């Protein structure tokens, strides 16, 4: 480095901008620190916390429901390939995913039923009401790529996207699918069953390890949904330059970012309002989408 020398007076603007940029970075760091950026901190807190007990709780069902979300998410990704590798190449992988997302119905309701607490139970029933609205559109949304590929095997669906990703011909199905993922993860705009207006709903009585399992299960469901969406609509491991697994992971993370961001950018939708949205808007839209894709598939 040379000597410090004086520059022209015009540089004062640049100096101000540099100061603002550094100050902004400081403010950003403060925000990150305030939000306790590491989920590890929250994990440590919950692991230390004592379990809450309630009167006349149905403990087996409560525990099953609480631990179930994480298990369901793990079972979901069994059929989702990471690039060229998959744990189970079922001939009906698409139906498997669908069956697992229905098991979420049981798990959330059991988590709401178990503690014998009013707000939890209300949350559990809210979830079933919500499920009745999102499930059918979700089913048709994941049927669409299967129709286009002519197979329920996920490897075939990925292969069918070789030249062109399915999102091009079925954008509506992708949007409906993502809505379904947000809904079965009890997340953000469709987190009404765990809403603050019922003191946390299904989450109300959960504490310690039980709460940790449910919260982790929720994120795991979001991640599993993103991975499945990336495989079904965004071409899975197909892509130039990078290895297949990197493409799978990149697309999954991109979809996950959209899902996570939805929490802060969309208003909460109550289950009773979602009923009409699901049956009168989403379902007809996705049916037309299936029709278009089916006609394209027959014409090809």
């Amino acid at each position: 480095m040379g000597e410090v020398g004086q520059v022209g007076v015009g540089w004062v603007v640049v100096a101000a901008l540099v100061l603002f940029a550094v100050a902004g970075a400081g403010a950003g760091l403060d925000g990150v620190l305030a939000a306790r950026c590491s989920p590890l901190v929250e994990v440590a807190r919950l692991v230390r916390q004592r379990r809450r007990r309630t009167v006349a709780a149905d403990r087996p069902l409560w525990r099953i429901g609480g631990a179930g979300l994480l298990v369901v998410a793990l079972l979901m990704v069994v059929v989702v390939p990471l690039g060229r590798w998959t744990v189970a190449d079922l001939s009906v992988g698409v139906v498997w995913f669908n069956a697992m997302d229905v098991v979420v119905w049981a798990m959330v309701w059991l988590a709401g039923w178990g503690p014998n607490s009013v707000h939890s139970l209300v949350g559990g029933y809210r979830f079933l009401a919500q499920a009745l609205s999102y499930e059918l559109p979700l089913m048709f949304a994941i049927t669409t790529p299967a129709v286009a590929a002519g197979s329920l095997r996920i490897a075939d669906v990925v292969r069918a996207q070789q030249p062109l990703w399915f999102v091009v011909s079925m954008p509506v199905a992708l949007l409906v699918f993502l809505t379904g993922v947000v809904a079965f993860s009890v997340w953000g705009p469709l987190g009404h069953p765990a809403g603050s207006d019922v003191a946390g709903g299904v989450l109300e009585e959960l504490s310690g390890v039980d709460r940790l399992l449910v919260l982790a299960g929720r994120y795991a469901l979001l991640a599993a949904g993103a991975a499945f969406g990336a495989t079904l609509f965004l071409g899975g491991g197909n892509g130039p330059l990078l290895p297949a697994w990197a493409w799978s992971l990149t697309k999954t993370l991109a979809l996950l970012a959209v899902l996570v961001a939805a929490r802060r950018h969309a208003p909460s939708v109550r289950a009773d309002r979602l009923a009409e949205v699901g049956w009168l808007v989403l379902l007809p839209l996705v049916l037309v989408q299936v029709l278009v894709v089916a006609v394209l598939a027959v014409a090809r």
Partner: protein
Amino acid sequence: MSAVFVDVAFWVLSVAAVGFGALVFRVDSMARATYALAVSFVAVGLALLLLGLEYVGIVTVLMMVMEMAIMAVFMVMYMGMNPALMPMNMVHSPRWAAGVAATTFVGLAALALLVPWPARRGAPPVDVTTALGNAIMGSKMLVMLTVSPVLFATLVAAVVLASARGRYDRFGDDLSRRPADDPAPGGVNR
């Protein structure tokens, strides 16, 4: 799959299916009874996978879990004085029921064991799901085309008959009231 694995899986799933089925009548809560039945059906669905019927097996799991979840809604909705939320006995007329169940079981089991079953002709197709689809939809397409609108019309008619409120309640006698007068407003402002 090795033969040993299939044998073990068959026995584990069969015992689970029967065991959880029996549990339905032993537990004292509607929630436990409902989900014991769900687990029993899941075991049956997984046992179907051993027959190579992947689609039918997984759809059985899907449908039965969904059905039991919905049953949880109805059981609280329709039960007077809400015994669903309290401990209750899961059997009615237990002696009669046990007698009928035992007779039916012995009868069916005897039939299964005593009937001279024909030997299998031919081999199973490679893709069982496609074969099943062809068997149902191929030659019987006309029947399916007739039955499905009739079924659908029946469903719609049943809902219309069951619904306490019609369009005149919602939109007024001359159907001109907007927005509709609904006890719970919907999400799309119809």
